[in-house]
């Protein structure tokens, strides 16, 4: 199963990737998650560096010009009784993997050949995506229409091949800096519905898309879509610059929306499980 992350410049891809890496580490260390991840050494080095920079109170540098690919794997714990689990061999436990790729999409028309030329290779994987994670900068809703056409065209193209099997995940990045005026116009509070309130979140997210990303919202309207709201808490450093806030909390040493990230990882696991059962 393939999952792709797409976002235009400034949408927070580097921070998102670093926080996703942090969440992967956190989730893999939860005893009952059955979750593991791996990547090629270059990607590990790149993502590990971004993660360490945030831990050190710095913003990670954007270095995703090269191909970034990593593997998430979930091992289902639901294999029967405790006794059965004891006797089942490691390799026989139901597992499935998701290959992730991060794409750098230029802020231009993505519908035609210009897209191919601008984004380089690996597009075949993008078009085969089962899950498409779209990053939207929630601090700049007013500029949403500038990228709406491009993103809409991209999703339309992927949807042509995948049909209703395509599962988009809309990630609103920089939620700590959300465009409050924009939300006010829609009569939405800055606090989205809780992570378990899937329907409430869908209504909330769809409203934002309808107003600021109408083409994208329209194209995904008949697809099962999840909405994620990401933020990272900041504080001022000695020079008055806003930097990621550090924590010495043992389980979660960064102040970021871990629950949102974990919710996304669990959702991906659920999709993978279904996909596995269908034998795809």
């Amino acid at each position, binding site marked *: 199963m393939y999952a792709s992350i797409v976002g235009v410049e400034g949408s927070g891809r580097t921070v998102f990737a670093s926080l996703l890496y942090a969440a992967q580490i956190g989730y*893999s260390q939860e005893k009952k998650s059955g979750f593991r991840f791996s990547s090629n050494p270059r990607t*590990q080095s790149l993502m590990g560096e971004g*993660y360490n920079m945030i831990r050190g*109170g710095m913003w990670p540098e954007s270095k995703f010009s090269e191909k970034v690919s990593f593997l998430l794997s979930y091992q289902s714990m639901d294999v029967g009784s405790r006794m059965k689990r004891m006797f089942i061999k*490691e390799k026989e436990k139901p597992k499935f993997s998701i290959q992730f790729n991060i794409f750098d999409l230029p802020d231009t028309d993505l519908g035609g050949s210009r897209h191919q030329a601008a984004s380089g290779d690996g597009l075949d994987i993008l078009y085969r995506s089962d899950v498409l994670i779209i990053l939207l900068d929630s601090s700049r809703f007013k500029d949403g229409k500038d990228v709406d056409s491009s993103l809409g065209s991209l999703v339309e193209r992927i949807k042509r091949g995948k049909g209703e099997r395509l599962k988009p995940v809309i990630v609103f990045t920089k939620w700590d800096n959300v465009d409050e005026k924009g939300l006010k116009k829609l009569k939405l509070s800055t606090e989205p519905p809780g992570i378990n309130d899937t329907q409430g979140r869908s209504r909330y997210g769809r409203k934002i898309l309808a107003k600021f990303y109408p083409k994208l919202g329209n194209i995904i309207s008949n697809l099962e879509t999840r909405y994620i709201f990401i933020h990272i808490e900041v504080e001022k450093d000695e020079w008055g610059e806003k930097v990621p806030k550090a924590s010495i909390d043992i389980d979660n040493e960064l102040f970021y929306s871990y629950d949102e990230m974990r919710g996304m990882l669990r959702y991906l696991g659920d999709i993978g499980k279904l996909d596995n059962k269908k034998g795809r």
Partner: protein
Amino acid sequence: MAVSVMGDRACGKTTFIGLLYAAQIEYTNNLVNKEAFKFTADPHIAAYMGEMYNQLRIGRWPDATIKGHSSKISFLFGYKRTMGKAAQKMPLPSWISRRKWAKPYSTLQFCVYDVAGEDVQDIIRTPDGYLSEEIPDEAKDLLESRVLVFLIDAQKISAKVRSKAYMKMINYDKEMATLISLIASYNSKKTDPLQRKIYPVIVFTKFDMVPRSTLQDMGLPDTLPKVKDQKARREYAETIMRRFYRQTLAYLKGGALKGVSFDEAAYIFSSVNTEFDEEQGFESPKMKGDEVDYSYGEYAAFITHFRRIANEMPDEIKEAQDFDTKW
């Protein structure tokens, strides 16, 4: 079977080797172990290790000269073969062990590497990564190792976020994770599942230097769980790993996704009791009789741990013959 000992600069490799040498001597000479364990090294390496050991025995820290040493530090462990899992402690009858075909010893060839972050980056930055012909032989040996001993300088554990020490620690964590990812990628190409099984050993060096407050913050007692209580030791060590070396721990688990198992990590805590040496003006190794006062139990556990690995992994015939000829 090849064993690589890796550690960052100044992580305590030299002292570790000196103490391991001391433990090897004590372990071999212990009548309980009889002929069960032997070790050997080329003469110049044996002399070098002996020198490190002697420095410790006179209450001095051995010189940190592994990098500058003209040749690779390597030595051989040999474990007397047993008759299978049911009779692990039963040595082979002498009429069998005397035969060449019985290969009486399972062997482990240890090599010590000075691995800094830039060395790992050099490999992954080459256009073909680990497939590149530009990779030095030493790095290839490392990638081929079946046992990886990672030395973690426990003195560098820092809970003070954003401090220089903290950044150094988390960057070392990242480099270890990159190395594990590299080794997993390299070994994933092998078809034999046995060749895709890697045994990691994490050695916390200078463990006596970890501030009590750091352990208390994690809810850990000052005293280590007993060597025999493997479960408690693993939990103790993984609490530290989850807090300070979480990338390494996550990548050890993740190796399985590439078909390379790193799952059975063992943990060793090395420490030397020290006392203030007024002549030199710093803490020096404390003596216990005419031997250095160190965590022998941990080193004995280290040697014992490798017995199981040596028994599990079939030797290359050449290795066994090699060992025979060295005796």
